[in-house]
């Protein structure tokens, strides 16, 4: 449908013709729309960082202590994985624009695999934390029992599981989007001439990794000085 679209012409009083921008085939509009959508993601995480900062101000020592118990080795590995995946995603877009559809698909596959690795490491991390009794709903994060952690640590872990959880959810969505993108490429709907979908999913992936770039130091690094690399 989009391919045979011919824009309309509007004529002013002097007879000069002006090309009308239709909603069809509006590459710039598609990009603008997705940028705006990503802006809402930034605001969502921004609000959560605000909450986090507020509680860190109230309980600085507890926050550092809680952060020290996180596993910086696994968290750091995941950071590297995500950064590399941003590279492969970017390469896939470059290849698509250069006309190398096969190479683009290969790079998307690489991104998907890296994303799955990220999730697996995350699962290992969460499981270890669960086994140490630190997880949402467990005694340590409830108030008023012998295992209860201090307020600041409860709040830290509450936000830690919430934010990394929501971030992980975005990774899962991202994998879904990339699989869909591959299908569209195979169906010929996304091609070097029409790659707005590819462009936007690459942008999505960039935001997802960018958010992690803030999540990682905020949770893992503030306690690095006292916690070593291993954490739990």
């Amino acid at each position, binding site marked *: 449908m989009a391919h045979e679209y011919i824009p309309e012409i509007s004529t002013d009083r002097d007879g000069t013709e002006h090309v009308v921008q239709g909603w069809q085939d509006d590459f710039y509009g598609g990009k603008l*729309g997705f940028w705006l959508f990503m802006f809402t993601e930034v605001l*969502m995480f921004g609000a959560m960082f605000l909450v986090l900062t507020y509680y860190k101000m109230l309980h600085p020592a507890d926050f550092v202590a809680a952060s020290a118990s996180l596993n910086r080795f696994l968290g750091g590995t995941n950071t590297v994985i995500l950064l590399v995946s941003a590279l492969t995603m970017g390469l896939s877009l470059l290849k698509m624009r250069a006309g190398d559809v096969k190479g683009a698909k290969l790079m998307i596959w690489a991104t998907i695999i890296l994303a799955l690795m990220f999730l697996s490491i995350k699962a290992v991390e969460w499981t270890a934390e669960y086994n140490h009794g630190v997880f949402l709903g467990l005694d340590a994060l409830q108030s008023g029992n012998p295992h209860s952690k201090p307020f600041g640590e409860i709040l830290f872990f509450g936000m830690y599981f919430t934010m990394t959880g929501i971030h992980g959810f975005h990774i899962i969505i991202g994998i879904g989007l990339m699989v869909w993108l591959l299908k569209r490429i195979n169906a010929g709907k996304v091609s070097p001439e029409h790659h707005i979908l590819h462009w936007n999913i690459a942008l999505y992936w960039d935001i997802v990794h960018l958010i992690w770039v803030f999540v990682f130091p905020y949770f893992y690094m503030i306690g690095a000085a006292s916690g070593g690399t291993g954490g739990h």
Partner: protein
Amino acid sequence: MSKSYFDETHCAIGHPKSTFMQWMLTVDHKRIGLMYAAVMFTFFFIAVSTALLMRFELFAPGQQFIDGDTFNQAFTLHGVIMIFLFIVPGIPAVFGNIVMPLMIGAKDVSFPRLNWFTFWLYIFGSAIAIASLFTDAGFADTGWTFYAPYSLNTGTNVIFTLVAAFVLGMASILTGLNFLVTIHRLRAPGMTFFKMPLFVWGIYATAWIQLLATPVVGITLILAIMEKYFGIGIFDPSKGGDPVLFEHLFWIYSHPAVYLMILPAFGIMSEIIPVFSRREIFGYRTIALSSASIAGIGYLVWGHHLYTSGMADIAKTVFSLLTFFVAIPTGIKFYDWIATMYKGKIVLSTPMLWAMGTIITFAIGGLTGVTIAMIGVDIHLQDTYYTVAHFHYAMLGGVVFLFFAGMHYWFPLVTGKMYDEPKAKIAFYMQFVGFNLLWFPMFIAGFLGMPRRYFDYLPEFQIYHQFSFFGALLFVAGLVFMFWVFYKGWTKGEKVGPNPWHATTLEWHMPTSPPPLENHSKVPYVDFDPYEYHHGEPVVKFDYETMRRID
């Protein structure tokens, strides 16, 4: 006979044969707007019925028909429907969809499929909210504000309502996004930002609020859900959390949201006033820019809801000062509208009556708002009926009245027919008188100390509640009558041409009435201002086939 958008449509998936499926799958902005209207007004009537139930209960002190817990659920249901299901999607979803693309000479919005998806997201969210009525725990009883820690402890079904509000927020974001891109990309050639009709300006400012404020409430609702299910602690004082933080996060969205409601309504006002004064609008730029500055300042004033919640005195003072500033651009608009009417050839048709009525009711709503922006006064009036009367004057007497004004104004555009003017005027007077009788006494009752959200009261307040009760009856009678007039107009009304009001903006220059599927026959070149009148007659005339100017 030429075909209108009622006869043919584009669909999101395939081309189904049945008319019903064509409506369900339609991507046409005009049809989507109409479907929003149908669903939203259904909910509106449910919420009005709930309000009537509350007014019956409040007719006398003590318990009449419902107990206190049911009353709590009643005002929550009323508030949640009115806010999240009715007035937040509100004017943008209906007239932003139907009229805005026509006004800028576009064939549709930028993402028609997304628009279709958004509509169904809205339906999905609404269904979740309504579904909680039928669960065992029953509808939430927290008030529409879900304040922690009560919302975390109550046994009623708050989760459904929170999820629903989140989904509806998503729909609102997507609508705003779609309109922003549409307004940036699809204006007809020649139409600069300062040649756009003022309604488009209103939608534009609103779309930014939808986009920038809604995510904050979205995440707040998610955090509240996490708190309720997993006890993450951030709003729970027993774990060191701060419930006031919830109030901040909630109002960071919900205050800008009131401008998200009123700005498109002001846009409707700015369309109606010049057309029925047959005069170019006074101060076009100041109106356009005041919309933008209201949207901007509106972000910085949320703290005026927290004067009694525990906040530093310096913060209170700053929030109070900033709140006063919002009154300035609003005052400018009022000044411009009245100046437009001055020496105009005023035509008192129903849309104009509604607009002029709103000038009175919204002025009351707005000025009483300034009174409770003052910290000292608000300490006394917070959570009394004074505040409830204030926001009903602003939302019902402002937004909803202008919504009705727009419904009369664009009725011939949407249906191609005309309603019965004399009857519509009677409906207006019934509602105008009924509304004031309904809410004005509540200012006094609130000032004297009648608290909000109570099903019982001291005998001394009875007289005010009884006035209010009869006002409510008159108002609702007028409301039903108005919809009956619309119904008759649509089924039996006289056919009218494309431009019955002698209006100037592009939505009135359609080749057929009602408009065809893809709007204007050709996209016009816009080298004129939106409201050009000369001696009471529109200046710009078009040949509706070629859409070239013939004046």
